[in-house]
């Protein structure tokens, strides 16, 4: 294998990956992985911006590199994208165009197992519960209250306010409640609101779950 399809370079702003123009992508990926792994604990716990330059790669390939970086380096990747062609000296060139498009891959990954916040009692109008993990409310969420979690939201009561699960973009996050009568439901960047018709009173025996399917939020009983 030809060495040096990829070179890593540290800058005050973060990490730059230089990809050789005539390299093939599979090689780039495996070599990058090797380099990251050989750095051992070096990246672990660090928080950095990552840019790449050199060979043009497509979105899909960018995503592959990014997820590999997140997985193997143990670092918190604040942004990832192609380095701007013109580098303005002295300006913050980390604000790349790639940043926004890659936000979706940088979301919280702890919905299977991760930090969890427990709230006992009714969450009332005007209160905002924010969490960097999952949230469990033992009580109701009243109109005017807002719950914002990077992970799942479980409410052991009635939801009448606004709940936002997967707030940094994780579409796999779910919202579960004994009764879902929210003003708005949000999962990742998808927002739905209650229908305008007065709600039909029905006796739902089991809890309800909202999740994302084909880009829409679906509410279903828990089977």
């Amino acid at each position, binding site marked *: 294998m030809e060495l040096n399809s990829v070179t890593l370079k540290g800058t005050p702003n973060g990490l730059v990956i230089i990809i050789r123009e005539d390299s093939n992508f599979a090689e780039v990926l495996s070599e990058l992985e090797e380099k990251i792994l050989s750095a051992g604990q070096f990246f672990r716990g660090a928080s950095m911006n990552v840019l790449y330059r050199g060979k043009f790669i497509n979105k899909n390939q960018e995503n592959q590199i990014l997820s590999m970086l997140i997985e193997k380096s143990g670092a918190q990747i604040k942004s990832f994208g192609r380095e701007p062609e013109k580098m303005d000296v002295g300006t913050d060139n980390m604000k790349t165009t790639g940043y926004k498009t890659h936000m979706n891959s940088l979301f919280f990954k702890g919905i299977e197992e991760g930090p969890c916040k427990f709230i006992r*009692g*009714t969450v*009332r*109008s*005007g*209160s905002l519960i924010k969490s960097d993990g999952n949230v469990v409310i033992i*009580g*109701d969420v*009243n*109109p*005017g209250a807002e719950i914002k979690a990077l992970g799942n939201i479980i409410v052991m009561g*009635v939801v*009448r306010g606004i709940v936002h699960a997967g707030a940094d973009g994780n579409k796999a996050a779910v919202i579960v409640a004994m009764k879902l009568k929210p003003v708005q439901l949000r999962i990742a960047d998808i927002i739905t609101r209650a229908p305008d018709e007065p709600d039909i009173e029905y006796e739902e025996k089991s809890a309800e779950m909202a999740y994302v399917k084909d880009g829409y939020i679906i509410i279903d009983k828990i089977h």
Partner: protein
Amino acid sequence: MGEVLVVTSGKGGVGKTTTTANIGTGLSLLGKKVVLIDTDIGLRNLDVVLGLENRIVYDLVDVIEGACRTKQALIKDKRFDGLYLLPAAQTRDKSAVNPEQMLNLCEELKEEYDYILIDCPAGIEQGFKNAIAGADKAIVVTTPEVSAVRDADRIIGLLEANEVRAPKLIVNRVRPDMVKRGDMMSINDIIDILAIDLVGVVPDDENIIVSTNRGEPAVADNKSLAGQAYRNITKRIMGEDIPLLDLESSQGFISKVKRIFKL
């Protein structure tokens, strides 16, 4: 040692002042020594509702600033033994008082009186913070309207955040006929959302407007249905277990006749 109760609602116009006046008068009728404090500085009303406007010499701000002794500012109601009013200043604003000063005043009054009722201004700003500073307990007043219930919910949250635990609920201006038709929130709907203890339900009653305009609390009027509701609330505050008024049956002559004939 007395007890400090704050009467609050968040939303304006739901009947905080009327409720304060009636509960205060009701407690004094039952032989308690009661002080009513109007904390709505700049927009005082409690004195008008009690018919004591023309007797104000000193007010709350004078007491706080030390311009007079507390006793001097308390207006004794001559009709009801044991009822005193500490009126708000009208020419100042809420920033003339701070929560610590209110707390000290409440502590002082608690020594001598059985109940201190604080009439809280609408809103959640300085005036509200002053009003709840010295409170041991809270009475939240709401009407069966979505907006009033929404604000009550916010207020309950703020009370809890300020360590005023387990507030009690009064639902004011209920119209049983509208509830029956499904045009008004029922008491159960409200309790479902607010999840606090109910201390009383007051029916919508034209007589209240007349009595507040005249400065005669309805609670002293034995014929008034709202007055009866307030008398019951007063007793419940003192710890008696009284069933809720049956608003359905006390609507008027026709319904009474209907009831007799089981129609």
